[in-house]
């Protein structure tokens, strides 16, 4: 009964979303504000109804009501409570419901937040958000309902995909969706600007915090996905260029470009069309990502359903959104010529321009790599994969270019940089970068990419340090205080700028983690019997025993490996080869020992009945920097979001 109430709420929400699209249009035409208030109520009510829908489904999970088909297919009576709650977004239907629920929450907040300050934008904002909600709710109600009952109900559920039974994986999809959906607010404001013709800098200023919030969520989501892949998939890598990883990475890349280029429009009133284009592309890529994951067009570890009917519907919906957005842009764009052109190639504007081009080219290469197998299959009928070599070859040079620009951008003058400005800001960093590169070479870096990586990290790192040093000194001298207080004052004076610096430092830390853990990675795959030892870098690993263990809904062979350095026993590592009871699907659970910001990573992918095992040991030095950098990036973004407001914001 409760599930039917939830189902009914979602159907009402669908009807209300139609009202949400048309009421604002009527309000615009008749200039009657009542219609607008009606649409606001509709939007708020949709949020409440979808919350009810989700609550009813959670109720079915908690009462283990397997007569609900979706509950039966994603949970099981032995599934632990925590994963039972998170199982809601463990499959196709439920995650779509979560998507549209987050969308309704964000739009409601946006409407109440900007209602007074942005009255002219409101009708468009509500109509655009409602239209996107309508698209998703149609899909949920007619093609992918999580509320369907089965009769007779199965005795037990099929269980949640074992790979998803992991803490990082329960939070990864909601964070990603918050990122994807977060970009819908700037997107709606941009569409409102296009429709209404109010094409100034206002929409950019209003949506600035929304943009960085969405970016933050997307970044956390991607980082969590990487961490999950790292220890749950058991191969010890955090990024495999899987189509679905790429699907989340592409909006991140274009979103990052957008985040940077809005600054140019704020400061110099340039890049107007460009920014509209970027925000439309970012949100489109979020939708395309959803399409790629949910339609079964591509093979990947993440694809859940292969149902052409659903796929066709999502494609039509995608066509409607992208067609409208890009169509309006094309029609309206001629109005938007920037008055100001680039004064000089050597200026901050042009660094931003290159930054944007690099990010877009990076997104395009990922896009091509992701879709190339589909193209070949469609037009040649053959199956191919695009492996990491493609991405490493095309993506790395672009990434290095971006890191270099990161060192230049914030410290070069607007309009036209003088030779003096360049010398003052970049001569020392260049020398430092050369020294760092030589040191890296001495430490055993050999591949051109890792050396170039050391160079750009040295360069960008020292420009940041030099700038902080100079500005702190300036404030210290001005206010006659010490350097630390000087830096604090500099920070308080320009929190936005230094929040950006913190984010950039986070990027550098992540890059150092990536380079170090790649260059110095030690790996060994061995076949061992109980009592055998093998050498892994500076460590000795001994298989002390293999025994059976039992969890709530799985059984496993657990290896007990002793990790020694010299004669000292450091720890015991217990990787498992698990089999989940309901699905009989095996997973490989890694065992990790953290030391000196790095990891000793051990998996046991194979156990034979006679008691020998295949073990794979990996030493990943500085790997914690990869996620530590993510944390610093997030801190920078928070400092940016919670900075004191200025009068013009």
């Amino acid at each position, binding site marked *: 009964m409760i599930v039917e109430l939830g189902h009914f709420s979602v159907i009402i929400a669908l009807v209300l979303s139609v009202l949400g699209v048309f009421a604002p249009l009527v309000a615009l035409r008749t200039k009657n504000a009542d219609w607008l208030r009606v649409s606001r109520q509709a939007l708020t009510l949709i949020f409440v109804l979808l919350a009810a829908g989700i609550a009813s489904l959670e109720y079915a999970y908690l009462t283990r009501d397997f007569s609900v088909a979706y509950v039966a297919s994603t949970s099981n009576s032995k599934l632990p409570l925590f994963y039972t709650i998170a199982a809601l977004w463990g499959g196709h239907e439920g995650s779509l419901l979560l998507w549209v629920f987050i969308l309704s929450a964000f739009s409601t907040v946006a409407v109440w937040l900007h209602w007074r300050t942005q009255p002219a934008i409101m009708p468009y904002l509500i109509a655009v958000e409602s239209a996107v909600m309508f698209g998703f709710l149609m899909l949920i109600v007619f093609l992918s309902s999580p509320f369907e009952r089965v009769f007779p109900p199965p005795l037990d559920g099929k269980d949640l995909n074992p790979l998803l039974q992991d803490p990082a994986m329960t939070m990864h999809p909601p964070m990603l969706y918050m990122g994807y959906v977060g970009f819908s607010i700037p997107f709606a404001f941009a569409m409102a600007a296009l429709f209404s013709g109010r094409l100034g800098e206002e929409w950019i200023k209003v949506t600035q915090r929304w943009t960085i919030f969405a970016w933050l969520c997307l970044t956390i989501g991607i980082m969590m996905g990487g961490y999950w892949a790292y220890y749950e998939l058991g*191969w*010890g*890598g955090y990024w495999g260029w899987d189509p679905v990883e790429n699907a989340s990475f592409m909006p991140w890349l274009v979103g990052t470009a957008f985040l940077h280029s809005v600054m140019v429009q704020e400061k110099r009133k340039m890049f107007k*069309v460009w920014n509209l284009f970027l925000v439309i592309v970012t949100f489109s890529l979020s939708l395309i990502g959803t*399409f790629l994951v949910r*339609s*079964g*067009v*591509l*093979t990947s570890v993440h*694809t859940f359903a*292969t149902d*052409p009917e659903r*796929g*066709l519907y999502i*494609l039509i919906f*995608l*066509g409607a959104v*992208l*067609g409208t957005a*890009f169509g309006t*842009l*094309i029609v309206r*764009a*001629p109005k*938007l010529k920037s008055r100001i052109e680039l004064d000089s190639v050597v200026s901050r504007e042009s660094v931003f321009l290159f930054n944007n081009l690099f990010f877009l080219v990076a997104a395009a290469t990922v896009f091509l790599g992701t*879709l190339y197998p*589909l*193209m070949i*299959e*469609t037009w040649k009928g*053959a*199956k*191919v*994969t695009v*492996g*990491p*070599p*493609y991405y490493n070859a095309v993506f790395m040079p672009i990434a290095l270019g971006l890191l270099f620009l990161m060192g230049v951008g914030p410290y070069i003058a607007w309009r036209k940089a003088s030779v003096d400005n360049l010398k003052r800001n970049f001569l020392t960093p260049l020398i430092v970068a050369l020294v760092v590169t030589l040191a890296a070479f001495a430490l055993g870096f050999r591949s051109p990419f890792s050396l170039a990586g050391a160079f750009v990290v040295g360069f960008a790192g020292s420009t940041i340090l030099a700038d902080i040093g100079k500005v702190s000194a300036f404030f210290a001298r001005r206010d006659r205080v010490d350097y630390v207080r000087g830096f604090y004052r500099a920070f308080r004076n320009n929190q936005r700028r230094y929040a950006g610096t913190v984010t950039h430092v986070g990027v550098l830390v992540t890059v150092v983690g990536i380079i170090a853990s790649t260059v110095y990675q030690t*790996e060994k*795959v*061995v*076949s061992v019997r109980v009592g055998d030892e093998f050498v892994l870098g500076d460590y000795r690993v001994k298989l002390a025993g293999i025994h059976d263990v039992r969890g709530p809904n799985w059984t496993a062979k657990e290896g007990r490996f002793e990790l020694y350095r010299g004669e000292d026993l450091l720890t015991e590592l217990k990787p498992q080869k698990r089999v989940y009871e309901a699905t009989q699907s095996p997973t490989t659970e890694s065992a990790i020992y953290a030391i000196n910001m790095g990891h000793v990573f051990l998996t046991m*992918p*194979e156990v034979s009945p006679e008691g020998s095992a*295949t073990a*794979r040991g990996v030493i990943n030095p500085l790997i914690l920097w990869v996620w530590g950098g993510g944390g610093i990036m997030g801190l920078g973004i928070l400092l940016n979001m919670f900075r004191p407001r200025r009068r013009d914001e």
Partner: protein
Amino acid sequence: MTRAWQIILVGALLGLFALFYQGLWGNPRYIPTILIGTPAPVFAAPQVGSSDSLSLDQFKGKVVLLNFWASWCLECKLEHNNLLALNERFGRDPNFVMLGVNYQDKEPDALEYLRTYGSNFQHVRDVKGAIAFDYGVYGVPETFLIDQQGVIRCKTIGPIVGAVYDNYVQRVLPALLSGSPEQVGC
């Protein structure tokens, strides 16, 4: 926005939608096995670590195990010990030969890989991916078994570990080597 940009934008969007539309009707998990029972495509390619060429023709009349691998492939490392064990066990048979095909790789990386993990059979380089294309290789590792008449009898997608390995040792390879490929069962 100039006219040219508008046309490019519209064209790109239309192309994308045509592609997605076509893609919907394929099954991404379906991997064709039409090659089983057909003559193995013949190739000649340079060996890993030398410029000398090796050709499949050289092994006419033998059972050939053709293994596609790459140094960046993690599952290849998992099956590697088993491959070495297979060659230990069956390599003495004059009618059996193993050949590795190094796919989408750089030669120094491939050499480093073989040095680290060991090798007891020969490997060729699939420089442009042409061999993999002829064999319809979708990803690595993939393994093909070719019988004495040069006909493909088996295809294994993914690493040769666990039950797959046992099956190779106990049934598939003995059946192929005894010249009764119809009993292969893979």
